[in-house]
């Protein structure tokens, strides 16, 4: 051994015995298992958190804001059986499915339930020309360009995106309206295709082989929905 260039005084030197050792308690030996479990659990937790809480899918579905006028689709479209296009007239020709002007309401309500307090705002609007401020329910992000006419003309039913509006007292969002959801149908449109004249029929069910009908309609109408980005984003 080399000559001393350090003092051999065990009592004073660190790491040789005089200092009391810190001893980890025995339970710390469980750390190994615990950390493995925590790692796995953390992953699961994150997935659940993201999928369950932050996904727009879950924050959007069920959105049913209160409207200024308690208009019931269940009554008008359901019980009374008024066709969608009576109010949403531009749905077949325009990118937008318009919300009807007050005058459309007054077509009937001039004579029906002329004193109902629920219709107070409608009457006032018709009188003053002050429009009714409805709350938008189905709201796509701003960079998405959805065209109602294109879809309706291809035979995609209202129900496919909006659900059974004819059963809704208050309109609510039933589909996630996310990009992934749009893509599902663009990749396989068959289940959502129906004859052109059945587009607004809420309770239409295909007779016979649904898959065959879808495929047939797709071929007939030359429908090949694009999944190119530029189809919806520009």
């Amino acid at each position: 051994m080399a000559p001393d260039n350090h003092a051999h005084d065990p009592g004073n030197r660190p790491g040789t015995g005089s200092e009391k050792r810190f001893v980890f308690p025995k339970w710390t030996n469980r750390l190994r298992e615990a950390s493995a479990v925590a790692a796995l659990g953390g992953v699961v937790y994150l997935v659940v958190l993201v999928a369950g809480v932050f996904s727009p899918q879950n924050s959007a579905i069920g959105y049913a804001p209160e409207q200024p006028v308690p208009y019931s689709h269940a009554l008008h479209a359901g019980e009374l059986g008024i066709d969608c296009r009576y109010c949403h007239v531009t749905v077949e020709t325009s990118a937008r499915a318009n919300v009807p002007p007050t005058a459309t309401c007054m077509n009937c309500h001039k004579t029906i339930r002329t004193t109902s307090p629920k219709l107070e705002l409608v009457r006032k609007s018709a009188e003053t020309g002050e429009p009714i401020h409805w709350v938008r329910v189905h709201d796509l992000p701003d960079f998405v360009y959805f065209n109602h006419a294109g879809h309706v003309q291809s035979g995609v039913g209202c129900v496919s995106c909006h659900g059974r509006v004819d059963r809704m007292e208050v309109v609510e969002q039933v589909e996630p309206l996310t990009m992934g959801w749009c893509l599902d149908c663009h990749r396989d449109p068959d289940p959502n295709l129906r004859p052109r004249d059945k587009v607004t029929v809420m309770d239409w069910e295909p007779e016979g082989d649904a898959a065959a009908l879808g495929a047939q309609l797709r071929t007939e109408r030359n429908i090949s929905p694009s999944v190119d980005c530029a189809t919806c984003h520009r």
Partner: protein
Amino acid sequence: MSATSHGGGLHALLTEFESPSAFMQACAKVRDAGFRHWDAHSPFPVHGLDDAMGIRGTRLPWLVLASGATGLGVATLMQWWMNAVDYPYVISGKPLFGLPAAVPVMFELTVLFSAFACFFGMWGLNGMPRLHHPLLAHDRFRRASQDRFYIVIEARDPKFDLERTRAFLASLGGSVVDEVRESVEG
């Protein structure tokens, strides 16, 4: 020399060496004496001690190989599925999946998976982390990580006999033979 004791049951006996060569010779003797639950502790891996102790090769490399292969597979399938199957888009007019472009990620994931297997596998096989151990409560044993070499024969070894083993250890030429006690707390 008086041993540091925590008052628990006897865990093992240890003996201390200053030089690696004496230590290694002693190890060979312990091995030849047929002990199973014993170990040698040194501040650095002493070359040749594997043989002196009679340790078999570890299966870690196989673990790493398997994991690396998994990484390669995951990378290949992931890239193919994501770009060519799940949402195929035309990029620069190229094929949806092209092997050359996938190579870097395949390589990286192979290495990453292997390294994880290597790292976690090694600690796992070593039974670590294990923060509590009777040896870690032994005062003298501190120098195992600095400048001393120890042979430890555990009490659970079938051939262990306090007196005889103590004598055996003393015969190995170490500077001291000491008891290692189980700690009472925890």
